[in-house]
């Protein structure tokens, strides 16, 4: 490795080495184990800050009063459901093209987390919808496409558990996830392309956000907290998956003893 890096800077070589080590399950297990407590701690701090600013400091909405505050859970959960699907599809594509085991592990570890966030987004949306719109559910474009996303996640989990050999299962799941990627832009643009009851984009658009700063800040804090939550949960799940996959390897036996 250092011979190859002879003409490159030392930093480039260290960078390369780090990623090569990270792709090895044994080193990933150790490195992820070191990161998890820090990510969890940062996540907790951000949750506390976001909830404080969102529930206590942010002013009540002039139209919706205090019941808009469920937005601080609903919107980050919905953002996470889309983000995790893209991570799953991307990791699946990497596993399919370059056969990197860890990419397959991350993809399958993300699926249940993504499904949970999608379910959370749908449920909190329903709870918000009942006082606001007068109904628990409406079959408009955004809600329907988010429901399809939940079905896609469940399909990925089901297909993975139906195939016994793990590597084949990971590759099949990658193909399924990639086929479903078409749904993501549909979900995002559904409120622009169709007449929906769900409101239009207020933050993720090219114009400046159509939301007041005092509400935007807790929203972004919660979004970051959810991302860190996903990060440490997926690392925990990935560690378990790595142990299961590599159970016949020497380093796993050493760990058990």
């Amino acid at each position: 490795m250092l011979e190859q890096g002879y003409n490159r800077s030392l930093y480039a070589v260290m960078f390369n080495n780090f990623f090569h080590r990270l792709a090895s399950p044994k080193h990933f297990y150790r490195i992820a184990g070191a990161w998890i407590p820090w990510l969890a701690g940062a996540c907790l701090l951000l949750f506390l800050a976001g909830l404080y600013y969102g529930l206590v400091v942010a002013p009540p909405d002039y139209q919706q009063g205090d019941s808009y505050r469920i937005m601080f859970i609903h919107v980050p959960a919905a953002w996470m459901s889309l983000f995790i699907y893209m991570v799953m599809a991307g990791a699946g594509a990497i596993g399919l093209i370059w056969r990197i085991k860890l990419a397959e592990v991350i993809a399958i570890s993300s699926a249940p987390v993504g499904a949970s966030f999608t379910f959370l987004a749908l449920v909190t949306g329903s709870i918000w919808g009942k006082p606001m719109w007068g109904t628990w559910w409406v079959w408009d474009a955004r809600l329907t496409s988010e429901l399809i996303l939940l079905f896609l996640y469940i399909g990925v989990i089901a297909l993975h558990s139906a195939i016994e050999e793990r590597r084949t299962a990971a590759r099949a799941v990658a193909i399924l996830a990639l086929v479903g990627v078409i749904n993501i832009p549909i979900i995002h643009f559904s409120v622009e392309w169709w007449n929906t009851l769900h409101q239009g984009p207020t933050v993720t658009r090219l114009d400046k956000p159509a939301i007041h700063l005092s509400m935007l800040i807790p929203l972004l804090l919660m979004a970051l907290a959810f991302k860190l939550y996903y990060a440490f949960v997926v690392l925990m799940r990935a560690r378990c998956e790595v142990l299961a996959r590599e159970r016949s390897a020497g380093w796993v036996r050493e760990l058990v003893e």
Partner: protein
Amino acid sequence: MNTDSLPRAFMVLVRRDLVLAIRHRAEIANPLLFFILVTSLFPLGIGANPKLLVAVGPGIIWVAALLASLLSLDSVFRSDFDDGSLEQYLLSSHPVSVLVLAKIIAHWLITGLPLLLVSPLLGILLGLPSEAIQVLFITLLLGTPVLSLIGAVGVALTVGLRKGGMILSLLVLPLYIPLLIFAAGAVDSAAAGLPVTAHLSLIAALLVLALSLSPFATAAALRVSLS
């Protein structure tokens, strides 16, 4: 398959599947009868109120077509998988995506085309107005190939599994939902006398998208299933 050129291989596959289907007529008849039966069940179940039937008719016919298509999907690769021909397709020098396209086209001719031809009759059974029946025909003409194409990806992923049938539904039905929404919406608009070009354009777009991408996804899925 001793053919040298790709077009010949393509035609050989299509003809073989069609000849096999004609010799086992049940493969053509069963999905068709299922389609007719399920559509007929609804007026019996929800009451024969003509206004109600016109209102829900397009959706019923489309959902029945979806389910009939789902049931017939298993036959795309099953017999080839069982006797080993599927591995020969993968091992041949021809691009697998083209061979897969041949199989899908044959499957549509065997299962989708009969559904299409019977749909005006079912439209009359449910009392749909004639503009709605015309649009129903067009949506099925554009939509049943999409069902075969998207379904082929699902079948390719589950062909190696023992109890693949249930999980096939779970994988494929979410991908069918946009098509169902546009197609049923088109027929509803036609029944109300509104323009349908937007709906039909979207279904045509889905067809072009599926036609261009699904053979590659199916070929990749077959490689995974047979590995």
